[in-house]
């Protein structure tokens, strides 16, 4: 049977991806350029018996999403720069309490109100370091409308599997572009649900590491009842200041992601086999880079693309290996230099690393990247 095909906006694809993954609860607050996600959810969720609520602010939206997730629902919120900043408080709460939820952050210019309708890629560090304290981070940076659908499904899967908030961050261009999308049929993409406890309610502990680094999570309202706090806690969920427990718990929360990096990290390699110049890019910038690489090849320069799909955890291993193969790495990004520091760290001096930085609200165009490739290819 032919697949259902549509012309869809990136933000709309996020919403449909969430529904495909089984999301049944959305809480949000209006903000450009992400509002379309909320609008689709407001229309579609009640049709499937789900819940949509527009809260009084970004902080409340994040809080409601966590509260609803604790009752067993898959939950989503969507925002942009200033809203993402406001959400950080409760994103930290979701991290330490290990409550699954997905956050769409459509990146616009900043800091502060910045350029609300302009594209940007300047929230990538906030996605990892935005909330205080040590915590794991998973962040995905799709580059097409189709990918916004499939990666939102994957975000829910990762969130449920690892009991952690996951952020999907298209830049404004990807969020607002319209492209053809082929809707996956149910079953085409696997959908993962959180692990429920196998022990009796009397024995249940919400952070019971006998079941591994990702303990099963029961639902409020079921036959299990338990305590959840943002304080450092013991296996039963109650506050503790015992040094060895706090240290162990914080390390476990990082470990549950770090030890599964190979399963979480995704990327795309394009014409890298014989490349002397590599572009490391993501989102809409990677689309410009691909065009520039094709042009460079025509001009006889062996250029290739490493496209980051999973930004956090960062593809350390892959970029390190890449740096030993190529002469030069170029990092174009719509900020004043963020990814380049990660790339330099991974390259460890094995390749020249240079950047193209743009924050004027205009996309980085293929011509700019091509000029840089030619310079590097000399």
């Amino acid at each position: 049977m032919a697949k259902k095909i549509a012309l869809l906006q990136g933000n709309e694809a996020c919403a449909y991806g969430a529904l495909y993954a089984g999301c049944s609860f959305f809480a949000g607050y209006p903000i450009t350029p992400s509002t379309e996600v909320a609008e689709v959810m407001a229309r579609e969720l009640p049709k499937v018996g789900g819940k949509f609520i527009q809260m009084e602010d970004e902080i409340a939206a994040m809080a409601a999403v966590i509260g609803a997730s604790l009752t067993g629902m898959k939950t989503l919120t969507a925002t942009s720069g200033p809203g993402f900043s406001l959400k950080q408080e409760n994103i930290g709460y979701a991290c330490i309490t290990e409550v699954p939820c997905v956050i769409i952050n459509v990146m616009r210019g900043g800091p502060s109100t910045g350029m609300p309708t302009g594209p940007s890629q300047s929230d990538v560090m906030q996605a990892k370091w935005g909330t205080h304290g040590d915590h794991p981070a998973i962040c995905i940076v799709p580059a097409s409308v189709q990918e916004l659908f499939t990666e939102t499904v994957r975000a829910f899967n990762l969130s449920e599997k690892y009991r952690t908030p996951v952020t999907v961050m298209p830049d404004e261009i990807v969020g607002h572009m319209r492209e053809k999308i082929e809707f996956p049929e149910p079953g085409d993409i696997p959908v993962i649900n959180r692990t429920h406890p196998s022990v009796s309610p009397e024995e249940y502990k919400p952070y019971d590491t006998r079941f591994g680094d990702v303990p099963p999570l029961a639902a409020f309202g079921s036959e299990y009842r338990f305590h959840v706090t943002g304080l450092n806690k013991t296996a039963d969920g109650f506050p503790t200041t015992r040094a060895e427990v706090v240290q162990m718990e914080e390390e476990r929360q990082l470990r549950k992601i770090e030890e599964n990096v190979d399963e979480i990290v995704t990327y795309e390699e394009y014409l890298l086999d014989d490349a002397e110049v590599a572009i490391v890019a993501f989102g809409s910038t990677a689309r410009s880079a691909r065009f520039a690489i094709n042009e460079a090849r025509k001009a006889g320069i062996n250029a290739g693309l490493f496209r980051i799909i999973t930004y956090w955890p960062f593809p350390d291993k892959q970029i390190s290996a890449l740096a030993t193969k190529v002469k030069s790495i170029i990092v174009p990004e719509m900020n004043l230099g963020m990814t380049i520091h990660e790339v330099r760290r991974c390259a460890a001096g094995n390749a020249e690393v240079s950047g193209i930085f743009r924050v004027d609200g205009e996309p980085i165009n293929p011509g700019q990247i091509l000029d840089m490739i030619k310079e590097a290819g000399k």
Partner: protein
Amino acid sequence: MAFDYDKYIRPGKLPHIWCPGCGHGIVMKGLIRAIDALGLEKNKTAIVSGIGCASRLPGYMDFCTLHTTHGRGVAFATGIKFARPEMQVICVGGDGDGVAIGGNHFIHACRRNIDMTYLIMNNNIYGMTGGQFSPTTPLGAKASTTPYGNPDPPFDIAKLAIGAGATFVARGTAYHANQIDKLLVEAIKHKGFSVVEILDSCPTTYGRRNKYRSVVEMMNNLKDVAVSVKAAENMSPEQLQGKVLTGVLYKESKPEYVAEYQKIIAAAQEAV
């Protein structure tokens, strides 16, 4: 036979963190009696809080309990109630948590009229951080951040709730212990957003800075300022000067948010 509070307290979680003379324990016992009177199911009842001394209450209670971020308890609770309407949701907290940092969530929950009960223990001070003035600290009162007396006018929480659209608003005091459970029973039974403010006292960080020589004196003060709504009917404005009304202050019936959304679901599904 004496009332068995232990039935609702989590084994091994006492003693609580509250100071001697603090009224929060009296309020918690009132909440337990109310829950018992209503026969609420432990697995179907969520008790949610923000941050502060009063917000430690859920940890002691044997229900589905959620101790969240400062001021955000009501927003988390909204997520739970909206996702699982069959659950009974009770949010608790203090004055700073509820009407300073949580003020926006508070007024919008009142406006939204979502079916839950918000129990605010108002002791007029930030106790946990050591006695800074709160939005309910009286003018002129001493706090660690108002060493020359408080120049910042206070909120009347009950009036704020009524103004914002709460459909059930009541006030009691920690002195009038036997009234607390009665007010809470009515509040929990009410379909809509209900606010119960319990005037409380903090001898440790408020009393000693404001010339209260003992816990008993602070408790007597609560007794002296409180006037029941009924008694107030026969009192002159002069007699009511400096008094605080207690009892059910406001009650009305309005469409409740979750029930209204169920209608939206029904209509949307019919249209599909």
